[in-house]
């Protein structure tokens, strides 16, 4: 466990908002492995994921003033920026990134991932809610959120139509919203 320091992530983001590049560099040093993983899970090409992480850090530098330590979790706030930068890149490329990775969305990496996820109370609640969803709703949500798959791509994997996938996912989202405070 890291010792909490004066320069924890919220403090660093306040410094980034004030234009401090060294603080941004510390954020990068501490978070880039996790965040590059987030971009790479969506884009699945290291070069493109690196471009997305670069774009994300430009956005972080520009938007750090919007980070609100009273409302936002710093790690989640950073990851959301990275995800949307990666999703933008994915859409700009017409979602042509390969989706035939046999490991994609499968259980092999799930044990480790679940261990990381349930390290927090929020993660445990989400895990429990996801576990209560229909498997196809759960699969759709995870494939979209983690791997950036579109409705048609998920439909192909689950052997159904994009419209059906969309309604499964919406049903799942409604259940999650009800299950999480």
């Amino acid at each position, binding site marked *: 466990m890291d010792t909490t320091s004066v320069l924890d992530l919220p403090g660093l983001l306040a410094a980034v908002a004030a234009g401090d590049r060294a603080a*941004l560099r*510390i954020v990068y040093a501490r978070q*880039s492995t996790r965040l590059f*993983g987030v971009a790479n899970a969506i884009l699945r090409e290291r070069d493109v994921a690196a471009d997305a992480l*670069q774009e994300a850090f430009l956005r972080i530098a520009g938007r750090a003033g919007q980070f609100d330590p009273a409302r936002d979790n710093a*790690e989640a706030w950073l990851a959301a920026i990275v995800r949307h930068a990666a999703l933008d890149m994915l*859409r700009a490329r017409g979602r042509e990134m390969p989706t035939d990775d046999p490991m994609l969305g499968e259980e092999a990496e799930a044990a480790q991932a679940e261990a990381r996820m349930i390290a927090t109370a*929020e993660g445990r609640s989400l895990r429990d809610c996801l576990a209560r969803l229909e498997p196809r709703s759960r699969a759709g949500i995870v494939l979209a959120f983690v791997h950036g798959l579109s409705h048609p791509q998920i439909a192909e994997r689950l052997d159904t139509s994009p419209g059906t996938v969309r309604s499964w996912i919406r049903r799942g989202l409604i259940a999650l919203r009800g299950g999480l405070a």
Partner: protein
Amino acid sequence: MIPADPAEREALAGEYVLGTLTASEARGIERAMDTDDALREAVLAWEARLAPLTEFAQPETPPPGLWERIAGALDPPAAAAPAPAPRPSGIWRIWALGASAVAAALAALLLLSPKPEPRLTTVLLTQGDQPAWLVEADRGALRLAALNPRPLPPDRVMQIWALPPGATAPTSLGLIPAGEGRLTVAPEGVRPEPGMLIEITLEPPGGSPAGQPTGPVLFVGRLVVATGS
């Protein structure tokens, strides 16, 4: 066009966060969030709910040199900030660069409790840029607080040094008693001032016999004014 139906808005906010909207739908949500506070709140709530799912992404080391690319994109060389005027030589100069900027980070943090008179502070960093000691000038004295105490080799002590701007050799501010995480030093002949470098080196018991640092530099930073705004 963002619909008025609450259920539909909620679903779109969730789908925006999931990433399943098309590019133009996503842009539409982003534009609407600028003026539609309720939609913005719905999106932020979905970001918070689904955030733990990012743990499903396998952490991976980014390619080497990516930070340098980012730094270059943020501050193209032509637009670089002017360099500070007088620079000391050797190792002091190398350390001066990163350390002063992080001291500015601390200055930003101190805005949370602004005080009328300007204060001099810095954070001493390790070689790996990890914050290690918080230093604050208090009139003629310096207060030091360890942020992340680490054990020392048994036969070594930590010695504090100061290098005022323009000086060519550092002055010893004394030794840090073993296991001490907080101390105040009142250096003679050296007054804390903006730009003064503070470093801690690893020395033999009793301190450096040479009157100059002999061991490796453990931590270093430069005093800056913690300004309010």
